[in-house]
């Protein structure tokens, strides 16, 4: 039998006491396994041998018997939880996006409504609210420009010019402003718009303004006004 006492690995220590200890280990009594251990092993081997491959796999993966039932229940619970979590996060994300869109829309309508309101104080509030969003929304920009050039109340007009001023150089506001200037027939409106460009516009916008002036789009008196203002700035 291969598991009977063996001579052991070579002992290459010089100490005689250690060597004697090593030798004496050989005489240590050895425990014998109880006979039931052999029976138990062969019973298990027999049981496993009788199982088809699939059953063996189920057992090894913990999917057989009561343990398997628990594993299956556990898998279902985990699956449902993961599913619910994934679903909830998607639904929440979609709801949040929809909610944000609704709030933005509501806010936009409120601003436009205020800018067109009969009450000057409401229009003033609308101008202040519109200042923050004008550069992202063409319709609000147009409404704000319209307050800046032709509101009948001076304080609203001044507030609108102040609100638009810092944003004139942004492409969205600048484009609207130039479009309005081209369409406008009133010299007073044109003057207000020209002032905005001269005060806050970029070099490119001032160049565009000069071109409009040369093409005769502006009122004749304004053409001279633009020319001298540009000349003054350049010198």
């Amino acid at each position: 039998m291969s598991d009977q006492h063996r001579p052991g690995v070579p002992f290459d220590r010089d100490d005689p006491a250690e060597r004697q200890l090593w030798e004496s280990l050989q005489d240590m009594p050895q425990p014998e396994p109880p006979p039931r251990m052999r029976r138990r092993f062969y019973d298990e081997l027999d049981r496993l041998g009788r199982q088809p491959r699939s059953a063996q796999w189920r057992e090894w993966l913990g999917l057989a018997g009561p343990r398997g039932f628990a594993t299956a229940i556990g898998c279902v619970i985990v699956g449902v939880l993961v599913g619910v979590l994934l679903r909830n996060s998607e639904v929440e994300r979609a709801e949040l996006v929809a909610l944000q869109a609704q709030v933005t829309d509501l806010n936009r309508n409120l601003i436009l409504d205020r800018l067109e309101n009969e009450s000057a104080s409401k229009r003033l509030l609308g101008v202040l609210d519109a200042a923050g969003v004008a550069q992202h929304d063409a319709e609000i920009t147009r409404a704000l420009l319209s307050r800046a050039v032709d509101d009948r109340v001076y304080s609203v007009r001044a507030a609108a010019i102040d609100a638009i001023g810092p944003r004139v150089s942004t492409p969205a506001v600048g484009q609207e402003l130039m479009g309005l200037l081209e369409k406008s027939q009133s010299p007073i409106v044109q003057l207000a718009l020209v002032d905005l460009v001269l005060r806050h516009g970029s070099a490119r916008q001032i160049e565009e303004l000069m071109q409009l002036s040369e093409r005769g789009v502006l009122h004749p008196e304004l053409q001279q006004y633009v020319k001298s203002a540009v000349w003054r700035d350049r010198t």
Partner: protein
Amino acid sequence: MQAVTDEQLIQWVADGDASCLGTLFERHHRAVYRYCMQMTRSKAMSEDLVQEVFIRLLRHASSFRAEGTCKAWIFNIARNVTLDQLRKAGTDVHDLGEQGEENAREQLVDHRSSEQVAAGYQNLQLVERALAEIPAAAREVIWLGRFVFDDYEELARALGCTAGTARVRMHRAMEALHSTFLRMNGAPIDV
């Protein structure tokens, strides 16, 4: 010399003939049981561990690589299973309870003559106690090197290290055993 080698048997087990595991069991279960008893000092735990070792052999037979002997592989599995079990049970293998000692002694079968018993009984008792007292890592290397393997290459495979490391571990383990014996006996073992 065995007609069929362990390596051939495990190959047949891997090929689906589970009955060959019976032969491997007959060849090695005593040594595995003794190793487990030495490490756990618990009869019941050792029986469970032997069962687990041979069932693992059946499950993982196809992963046996013929770089070492099947025996070294079996003891490597036995070692892993035993250490896992000890960790799981939270057992401090240095601190063996009285029940464990009794269980261990209950199973001892004395094959020696009455003269040998009379001459070396006290020494043997002390060697046993010293062996039980040294750290589990030292105890296992002494046990496997003294009773299971006869070369360092195979011992190293069972321990999962190189032969050089196994040799160093054996030296340190024997030093630990010797100093523990000295402390208990007050003198070196009779030479």
